[in-house]
């Protein structure tokens, strides 16, 4: 039974750890499906995390925090749009610039406003999104098998966790069942086809980036207002890049994205859990190796173990009709 409990606990932290990846991955899915590469997921998450924690602690409201996180993250997405859609700039350069601005500005503003070495004040109850305990969770906890699964895995997460997983079918529905989704997919494949069909390519791509900004904002808010009770500098720690890897791994499909993010989350959870404890046969695995495992796996997967991943065909190329 001990093993079973351990597994449930690992899976529980898998869910918690995969949420920011999943939100960022779906965010990237919107922009990349529209033909805009977005390496700035990381930066947008970071400003979202900062804005969320800062606003929540100043206004004493988790929802104001979330709103602010989304607002600022969308604003950064619009900067990316202005550079890469309106001015047809290089999307990678613009994305990298956003990451740098995010990393620098959050520290400077954090220090200037709160004088805590770049941190925001620890969030109090009501300023955070707390765990929602489902009815009967405590009562069934001792029922074998089902009990722990219900109490640990299904119940007891914050609102944003459920939101993140609900975003998966929602994203799929938007993409494949609505007019907006059809046009979004089309503009990422062949913007000229969209243009000649009488639809504005630029406006469509801006709307895709707004979706991206909303989702990275929520992802950032999750980091600083759920996973951690406040903002810490550089707290995204490369999650935006892992999300991009997951996106490729998922071949730009929402349901695949969920599984890819769960896999990465699981590796992370397993790494934390197994740190220092010996494994059968292999013996004691160095901590560093376990920590590096998700990245090693990413490299191996990206090196072609997932079959051919065909990105949206117009991805990364500014739409120019007159040379």
């Amino acid at each position, binding site marked *: 039974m001990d093993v079973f409990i351990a597994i449930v606990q690992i899976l529980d932290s898998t869910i918690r750890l995969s949420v920011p990846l999943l939100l960022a991955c779906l965010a990237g899915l919107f922009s990349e499906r529209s033909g805009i590469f977005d390496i700035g997921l990381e930066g947008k998450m970071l400003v979202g995390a900062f804005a969320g924690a800062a606003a929540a602690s100043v206004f004493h409201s988790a929802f104001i925090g979330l709103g602010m996180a989304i607002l600022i993250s969308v604003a950064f997405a619009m900067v990316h749009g202005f550079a890469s859609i309106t001015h047809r700039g290089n999307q990678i350069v613009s994305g990298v610039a956003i990451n740098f601005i995010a990393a620098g500005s959050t520290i400077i503003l954090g220090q200037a406003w709160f004088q805590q070495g770049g941190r925001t004040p620890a969030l109090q109850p009501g300023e955070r999104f707390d765990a929602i305990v489902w009815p009967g969770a405590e009562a069934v906890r001792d029922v074998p098998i089902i009990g722990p699964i219900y109490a640990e895995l299904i119940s007891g997460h914050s609102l944003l966790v459920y939101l993140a997983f609900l975003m998966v079918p929602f994203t799929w529905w938007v993409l494949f069942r609505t007019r*907006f989704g059809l046009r979004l997919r089309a503009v990422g494949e062949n913007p000229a086809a969209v243009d000649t069909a*009488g639809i504005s390519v630029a406006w469509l791509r801006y709307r895709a980036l707004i979706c991206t900004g909303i989702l990275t904002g929520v992802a950032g808010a999750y980091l600083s207002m759920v996973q951690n009770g406040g903002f810490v500098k550089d707290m995204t720690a490369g999650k935006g890049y892992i999300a991009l890897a997951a996106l490729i791994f998922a071949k730009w499909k929402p349901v695949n994205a969920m599984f890819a993010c769960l896999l990465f989350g699981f590796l992370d959870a397993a790494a934390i859990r197994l740190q220092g404890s010996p494994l059968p046969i292999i013996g004691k695995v160095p901590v560093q190796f376990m920590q590096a495992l998700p990245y090693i796996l990413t490299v191996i997967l990206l090196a072609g173990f997932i079959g051919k991943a065909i990105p949206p065909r117009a991805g990364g190329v500014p739409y120019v009709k007159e040379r």
Partner: protein
Amino acid sequence: MAQAAIELIGINKSFGAVRANRDINLEIARGTIHGIVGENGAGKSTLMSILYGFYQADSGEIHVGGKPASIKTPNDAIALGIGMVHQHFMLVDNFSVLENIILGAESDALLKSSIAKARSELDRLEREYGLEVDPDAIIEELPVGLQQRVEILKALYRGAEILILDEPTGVLTPAEADHLFRILKQLKEQGKTVVLITHKLREIMAITDNVSVMRQGTMVATRETSKTTVGELAELMVGRRVLLRVEKGEAEAGAVKLAVKNLTVKDSRGVTMVDDISFDLRAGEIVGIAGVAGNGQSELLEAISGIRHAVSGSVMLDGKPIDLTGAADPGELRDRGLAHVPEDRHHVGLVLAFEENENSILGYHDDPRYLKGPFLNVDAIMADAKDKIEKYDIRPGNPRLKTANFSGGNQQKIVLAREMEQDPGVLIVGQPTRGVDVGAIEFIHKRLIAMRDQGKAVLVVSVELDEIRSLSDRILVMFAGRIVGERGPEATEGELGLLMAGVERQEAAL
């Protein structure tokens, strides 16, 4: 004459320095099939894209159905009942036929009802026009002929009354083209107006009511099809250019330098561009390849110079084969004495961001003359560049100037100087004087003839008939990927024009 469906008045359009349309006037009668012919680059697509709202004219007016219309986006055009089948299809390759058809014409925010509506509407169009296509097929899995049908359906689905087709037959087999023409005739019978762009004169004669000819951005003539001839159209299309004939003596053809045998080349879509071509090029002669642009000349040149994959056949340079996989080492070919002045000097011949002196040795930069140990010998390169500038009268005569700042003609001279001064045994030149002013043309022609007189073998591909006639010792005419005739330099323009239009071949086939 019937009422005008469309009237274009004084349309001008420039792309940077290129004037794609100059002061164009055109009237298209309702319920007719109106052809527009012209060589590649004449500005046909640009003009039609302006009518469709894809490009904005710099100046000019458009009247639709007798009323002034403001067409700023394709949406405006669609609302006015104008539909267009573009030269390069505007389809989303991994979408289904239905998805492509409803894109931009969805009935509401959810797809379900749009798809259902499109399915039944498609059914009706299919029955009405014989435009059959599986609505659930994925575009990239369909042959080009069917993809084109989807484009036509897309326009009809949007209620097009005026249908523009930009070079629709370029990608079609003759049977598919015939089917397309039947459909177009049917559309006309239903009162729709069709604008057909092509550079194939046979098609114009077969199906259009009126025809307009474009050349270098201008509208040179409009004729009733029944009152014109292929010969006249060919002449209007190519145009006469006053050109000073360069004096030259008899050729003294020597040994075979380049032997092309049964060469066949396909383009990326799998369409045969060069069809089983064979010819010899001898030392001391200039062979000219004439033809309306787009009949396989470019592909032939690229295959011979080793930069395009040939499906079959062989090319022998001095008796030894050239690698035809498309991956030939250009350096090796240069060492073997094959120099190539590409048609598209901007993309293939020059690095525009480089200084003139760098471009004047590009590709030969490993030559010991230009090296000092592992480094470039800047002094030698500059001296060499100055020498070429003088000899070829390249202006401005500053080897440090960025190549992009030279005019087209002078850029061409930079490439020519580089290739000719290497003293190659075989020189292949594509469009030697495209975009070059008259003075420079004469100079370039003289240099080419001087090369010949030194016993070099020269192959010239040009769409300018005058140039071919004044340079060549032998003229090969290409049409639809084949050599349809060989003539001497005394051949008349009319005779060559007919060959270029594929007329003789067609008559032979009848």
